[in-house]
């Protein structure tokens, strides 16, 4: 994996999160509740379920990201970041159109009848926090490792966690948008 300029990477990630926020604010939070709860025509998740699934990742990763950022300031005028192979693999798996249909892990399965307004508000709140962390990360060492939600034995670099979480968000937001 090649090194990329840290700031450019974080800028791109921030732009993604900004787009996700705009979508959630403009569309999702204003949907009538019945539409947000409607299952997909193929029996797949409703919009609320997609976002609740994303929230379960945020519930785990946002505190871990905060811990990884704490006391982790570097002084480097042009910091570079190199993805690890596993981080790169996870992120790649998340890309929409990667062709893989995966079953959600046990602790990330959404409820059958989520509280749609609450789920959407939580999603928005989590994206605002993520934006804040991306900005703090500009002065942080992105190579610092943190655990992943599905196994305590595996630790990914902070830069890879950002990429994977945001790619995962993109995947399910695309899925949610297909309802509309």
């Amino acid at each position: 994996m090649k090194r990329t300029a840290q700031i450019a990477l974080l800028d791109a990630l921030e732009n993604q999160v900004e787009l996700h926020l705009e979508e959630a604010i403009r569309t999702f939070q204003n949907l009538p509740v019945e539409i947000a709860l409607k299952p997909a025509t193929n029996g797949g998740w409703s919009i609320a379920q997609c976002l609740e699934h994303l929230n379960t990742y945020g519930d785990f990763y946002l505190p871990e990201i905060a811990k990884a950022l704490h006391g982790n300031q570097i002084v480097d005028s042009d910091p570079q970041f190199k993805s690890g192979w596993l981080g790169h693999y996870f992120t790649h798996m998340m890309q929409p159109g990667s062709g893989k249909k995966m079953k959600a892990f046990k602790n990330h399965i959404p409820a059958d009848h989520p509280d749609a307004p609450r789920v959407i508000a939580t999603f928005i709140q989590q994206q605002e926090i993520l934006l804040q962390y991306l900005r703090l990360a500009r002065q942080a060492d992105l190579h610092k490792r943190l655990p992943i939600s599905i196994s305590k034995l595996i630790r990914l670099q902070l830069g890879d966690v950002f990429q994977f979480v945001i790619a995962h968000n993109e995947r399910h937001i695309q899925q949610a948008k297909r309802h509309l």
Partner: protein
Amino acid sequence: MEAALQQLKTLVEATFPLPPDAWNALAAIWQPGSAKRKEILTAAGAVEKYLYFITSGVQRVCYFDENTREATLVFTYAPSFGGVLDSLLLAKPARYSFETLTQSTFLRANASDLKAVMQQHPAVLEMVHTGVTHALSGVLERLVELQAFSSEEKFRKLLQRSPHILQLVPHKYLANYLGIDPTNFSKLINRVQL
């Protein structure tokens, strides 16, 4: 910057027309600026350095305290002025913060440049005086709403003033502005929108 100054000119001409030399002096003190979503332009405790003229996006003046109380006092958006106005004019530390809720663009003039133009051009002084008085009227009106209106009436008033705000700003800020908790706000929207 030209387009932004034109927006300012339009607003001034509509509310308090200035003689040409006063306008030229006023037009000269602004710098363009921009901010991303959720950037704090003025932190509570600091003295407000600028008068803002908003050209895009939505911002808010808000109060926080250690008891996690939060109060959204006002939303600002184009074409109107922004910033913590009392702190600016009194040159005292702000009790509130001024932050962006969306990506935003603006012009801003610093306090000393503004003061100088106000001193040199009585028409500008009068314009600011009128503007502040209108701001006071707005606050009094809002006090009435907060004390005497139902949640639904307050909500309708907000939509009247800012029809697009539901699509621009997370609902939690609107709920906070109206003094309603977010769950009741969601129920209100589902009721009123249909």
